[in-house]
């Protein structure tokens, strides 16, 4: 599936950028490549990179999910409220995960069954789920989670890595195998390339899209819970605006916004690039908003550059014939 021609050019570019960024950061702070900082690197954006994995599958299938950040917030808030209401933590976690799954399936129903554009449906989700989250928790914040729960997000338990980072690596392998090895992955690519041709070939397009959105909601809820674990408390505006970073990580990885192409290695590399970039900017004391604007620029470039290359190539081919 990985069109080798494309692999070399795009992933090679990402690798070069990564090396440059890391080199600059190391120059600025000798501790940069120390194990502590590398773990910090992942730790500070663990929620985003986890959701970027399922977002990759959604975009490869030709759709988009803007509501992931709000589902993260909703799940985290539900967790907090349930915990405060005295429900034992494991049960609260389960219910929060199910709420994410339900939100994802709700999105999936409107996109797959009713055939609405995923952009409009998930935009409604972005507003609606965030509203729900803030309704449950109002303006307060809930904290004081049990110690074992906080260690998931904070303590280094598995060697130098926290459990949440372990979860990310496990998910990375699962998505890599699904997307590139399994039958489901093959069908997701087919749907992304040409939905009608897939339908004519007997592929259950509606069912697969429903599952993809369900998985996206579930993993977003998981990320929301890990976010609560990392901070030790939850608020209504948790993870606001995360969808920009998540979508950029996927598109910068060479996944086409129109679906059907791109691979997990590219996304992995683009995750490393963005994490190091954000960390480097942090060290250079660049404010949060300015960092986000750099990510915004990356988002536009990751679609603009292939577009320009494509038009130049076709113009060059026309002139040749």
């Amino acid at each position: 599936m990985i069109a080798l021609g494309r692999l070399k050019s795009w992933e090679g570019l990402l690798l070069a950028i990564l090396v440059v960024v890391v080199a600059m950061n190391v120059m600025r702070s000798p501790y940069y490549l120390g194990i502590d900082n590398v773990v910090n690197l992942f730790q500070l954006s663990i929620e985003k990179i986890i959701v970027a994995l399922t977002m990759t599958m959604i975009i490869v299938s030709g759709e988009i999910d803007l509501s992931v950040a709000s589902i993260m917030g909703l799940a985290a808030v539900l967790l907090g409220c349930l915990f405060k209401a005295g429900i034992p933590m494991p049960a609260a976690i389960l219910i929060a995960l199910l709420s994410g799954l339900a939100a994802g399936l709700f999105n999936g129903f409107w996109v797959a069954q009713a055939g609405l554009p995923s952009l409009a449906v998930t935009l409604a989700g972005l507003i609606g789920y965030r509203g729900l989250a803030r309704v449950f928790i109002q303006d307060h914040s809930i904290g004081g989670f049990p110690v074992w729960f906080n260690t998931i997000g904070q303590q280094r338990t598995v060697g130098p890595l926290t459990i949440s980072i372990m979860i990310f690596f496990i998910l990375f392998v699962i998505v890599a195998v699904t997307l590139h090895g399994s039958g489901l992955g093959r069908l997701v690519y087919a749907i992304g390339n040409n939905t009608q041709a897939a339908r004519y070939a007997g592929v259950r397009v509606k069912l697969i899209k429903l599952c993809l959105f369900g998985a996206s909601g579930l993993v977003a809820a998981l990320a929301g819970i890990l976010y609560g674990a990392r901070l030790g408390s939850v608020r209504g505006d948790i993870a606001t605006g995360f969808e920009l970073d998540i979508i950029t990580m996927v598109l910068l990885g060479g996944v086409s916004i129109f679906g059907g192409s791109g691979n997990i290695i590219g996304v992995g590399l683009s995750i490393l690039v963005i994490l190091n970039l954000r960390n480097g900017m942090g060290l250079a004391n660049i404010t949060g908003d300015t960092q986000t604007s750099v990510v915004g620029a990356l988002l536009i470039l990751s679609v603009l550059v292939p577009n320009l290359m494509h038009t130049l190539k076709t113009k060059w081919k026309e002139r040749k014939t």
Partner: protein
Amino acid sequence: MDRQRDVRPIFAAEDPVRTSPESGDAVPILEMRNIGKSFDATQALDDVSLALYPGEIHALLGENGAGKSTLIKIITGVHQPDRGEIVFAGQVVAIHNAAEAQRLGIAAIYQEPLLFPDLNVAENIFINHQDRGQVVGWGRMFREAEALLAELGVALDVRRLARGLTLAAQQTVEIAKATSLKVRVLILDEPTASLSAHEVEQLFKLVLGLRSQGVAVLFVSHRIEEVFQIADKVTVFRDGRRISTRPRSETSSQRSITEMVGRETGLLQPRPPVPQGELLLSVRGLSRAGVFEDVNFDLHRGEVLGFGGLIGAGRTDVGLALFGIEPATAGTIILNGKRAAINSPREGMRLGIAYASEDRRQLGLSLPMSISANISLPVLVRYLNRVGLVRTSLEKATAETFRKRLAIRTPSVDLAVAKLSGGNQQKVMLSKWLNTRPSVMILDEPTRGIDVGAKAEVHNMICELAAEGVGIILISSDLPEVLAMSDRVLVMREGRQTAILNRNEANQESVMRAAMGQTSDRPAEGAST
């Protein structure tokens, strides 16, 4: 929609037919000189010259793919000719887009009108008028629109949205749009395909009105009796070449048909007849509301049933219904003696039916994916191991067998299908469906747009399949192919089954006549049993 209509000549035979003025003195308004156009391998137009005279209805006849629509697209600036030139009112012109064509006074009305559903009728008429200034004078526009429509003898509310109009009303709006731009050449491309008799009559009144105002009309249609009703001059196209141009009085529908189809059928040896296997599929009263009605036929193992007819006759829709993409709304399908309700492609495939679409690039294949991935897609589950991972080695092996069996010229089966030639792409699609091991194989235009060599190989494959006992439904507009390959030919016209001709009865004329409305005397098979 009442599709069945009797043929009632609008004009008494003795009505003085306006023969076009001798070509000597009148200056043609639009003249095509030695136009040539080809798309990758296929030659769409080969050295075509045609002249349209003001105040003359010039009809264009030809089979599907004879180059009619390409010519229209060149006149309206959608395509540029590779060779030859266009002369408009005496000067050589180059038409790059529809706007330029419109400025010259050339307007085209397609089968699917190009209107704006969210704008009202008056606006649709004047949307492209540059000369009306930046501010839209609604009052004036409504008045002028009403005047235009009145002039065309049509009563239509100019304030209502185009969204709710019937196809006939939309065409009238398009014509009004053309007249508002002082049209000098009006092209009608298959305008009457889905109109009722009354609506056709309305349309002809409008066209005759335009003719009397000196407009040159190019009328493209498959309905041969309409052509001979209204046209002053008739041109026949075949395989991208202009065969003949004659005033209507000097020709007849019969002669035109022979000219349209008069290709040597020599080069295709007819398929050796195969002893008929047992009954595989029998279809009774199959219909889909508003698309096709009351189709009845039987299919035996090893039999090739050809589906003849023109574009829009509903042959593809029957195929889609059998395969379950657009399920039938009535009628029964009996497969291997058992009744089958096919409501999705999955059910179709499980029952052993396969449908190879006519549009391989859009509907048949996933272009960026590799050959082996495309071939295994419909039955992917067969290639998964216990854990759900794809056994790529098995997949490649299958692809290799088909590569040899259908001689697909490709360096490797991992190559993206987009990089293959048309013929090889067609073979990959056929392999994809052969891979589902169907008992009934529906082939929709299997040899359209592919080179002669690939065409022969596809035909051999069809013979092999039939020999192996697969029942084949061959939907094709390539008449010689249908006649050569089929044991029997079912002909459809506008969603109705007009005839089933067995091998000896079927020839180019009989099929064409059935396809164009001169229903043959024999009732459709199966209706009685």
